[in-house]
């Protein structure tokens, strides 16, 4: 049974279509990255999955439960971190986690134990007795992650979990997510930081203007949607070589740039098999001094731009 699924999920805000017939199936115990430009509908989808918003039409299931607005049985199985976590500023981190534990109906003993573990996990033990009003944005984000884990959720929804964190904090959070996945938690995270998604996510979904553009494994996505690139570096200006490449039918585009004493080419091709054979042969016959030659896989960012950037009009 999938951990999260939805069919025909649509959400209108007046004339604005925030989600348009969204269909997703996310398997158990995976980290799913939900990508899209600002206003694409990521937060709307997250709010529907967590029971905080009602879809205009369509249905969704999370952890085996049909998603119904404010469903207690659903909400007892999930954890949720909004994009900008908000707290009662008069509370300390410890008080807030205790409050959340009580809302989940945990015993005092379990709350105390869980608070200690979570504060340690998000590195807030030393600041646990300070009021949240004095916390930095990064500290608030880490407390937000801690509260989302209070009930050991089966499915964890995170809206931009690393956006306010420094590189070290980001790395720690991503490591935590991987550990949680190993402990049988399914994680649904939206993010703008594609490097983070690439690092930890098993599958991704790209959404644009409320519509799902693609849902796929990260590797599969890179293979399917981006043209392979060949990077070539010469030690002198190889302008005639660029002209030669551009005249070939299997070459799509050549970008050339001089960097110091180096002349760098990025060649995108239509026929990878031919390029693999022909480019080295052409280099050998060109007479230019080769510094480096490699075939590179596109990054997730390049795939994202390929899929979403091209749709901007």
């Amino acid at each position, binding site marked *: 049974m999938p951990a999260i699924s939805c069919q025909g999920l649509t959400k209108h805000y007046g004339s604005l279509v925030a989600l348009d017939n969204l269909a997703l199936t996310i398997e158990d115990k995976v980290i799913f990255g939900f990508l899209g430009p600002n206003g694409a509908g990521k937060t709307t989808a997250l709010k529907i999955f967590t029971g905080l918003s009602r879809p205009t039409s369509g249905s969704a299931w999370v952890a085996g439960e049909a998603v119904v607005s404010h469903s207690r049985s659903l909400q007892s199985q999930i954890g949720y971190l909004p994009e900008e976590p*908000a707290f009662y500023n008069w509370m300390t981190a410890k008080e807030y986690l205790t409050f959340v534990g009580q809302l989940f109906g945990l015993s005092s003993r379990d709350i105390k134990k869980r608070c200690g573990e979570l504060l340690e996990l998000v590195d807030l033990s030393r600041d646990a007795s300070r009021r949240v009003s004095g916390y930095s944005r990064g500290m608030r984000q880490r407390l937000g992650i801690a509260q989302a884990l209070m009930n050991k959720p089966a499915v964890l929804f995170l809206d931009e979990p690393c956006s306010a964190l420094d590189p070290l904090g980001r790395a720690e959070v991503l490591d935590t997510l991987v550990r949680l996945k190993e402990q049988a938690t399914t994680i649904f995270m939206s993010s703008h930081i594609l490097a983070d998604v690439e690092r930890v996510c098993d599958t991704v979904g790209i959404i644009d203007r409320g519509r799902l553009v693609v849902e796929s494994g990260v590797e599969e996505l890179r293979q399917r949607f981006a043209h392979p690139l060949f990077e070539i570096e010469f030690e002198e200006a190889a302008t005639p070589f660029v002209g030669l490449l551009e005249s070939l039918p299997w070459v799509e585009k050549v970008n050339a740039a001089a960097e110091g004493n180096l002349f760098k080419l990025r060649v995108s091709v239509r026929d990878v098999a031919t390029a693999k054979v022909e480019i080295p042969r052409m280099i050998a016959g060109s007479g230019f001094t080769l510094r480096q030659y490699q075939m590179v896989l596109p990054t997730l960012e390049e795939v994202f731009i390929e899929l979403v950037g091209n749709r901007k009009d």
Partner: protein
Amino acid sequence: MSSFFVLFRKEFKGQLKTYRFLIVVALFFVFGLGTPLLLKYLHALVPAENVAIGIPEFTAVDAVQSYISSLGQLGLVAAILVAMGSVASERESGTAAMTLSKPVGCGSFIVAKLAALAVTFGVAIAVGAAGCYLYTVVLFGNPGGFDFFIATLLGALYLLFCLAVTVMYSGFVRTPIVAGGLSLVTLAVIAGTAGLPGMKHYSPGALLDWADNIASAGGPNSWWVLVVSVALIIITTVIGWQVFKRKEL
């Protein structure tokens, strides 16, 4: 512990930590003490040669009636100011979404807020009433302990109604000031209806008239006002809960 009690405890603790409890109690205490004091020394404050008409000699009944009147005016403003952001500001800041993503019912969320506000105002009214009664006894003589107690209870019920209306509007909109404005207009209209011939036996605004009558040991009991007021407190709370449940967080 049920989510209602967890939320109620959080609400009440919040009122203590943000000094709202202290401020409301202090306000009611000051005007509770101040009302009989002001009446007693009004002659001294306003010399007779400065006013066109004579200031009468005030009695214990006047002191209690003046206190009831203040409860309906100053108390109403305090109730609106304290309650108007109770739900709206939580929606605006995002704390409502954080709390309601947990297994918590919207009904518990709204009722816990109203209950915590009711306790704060209940304590404040009790403290204010004790101060008023004490100074009235000292300065004017005993106004009648039981009648004063019943009149205060009716005033407290009126303020509970004001709180319920304001919490309801606070659940309707995201902006506290809009909730406050809507509450003020609604409560002003309801207070106005108490003066209408057909409505004076039913409008919650007539609770204060009844309290006034009890204080002056005259006038009939208005049991329908009591019934209608309690029913309206329940109805506004249910409407607030149901509307809030349908709101986007």
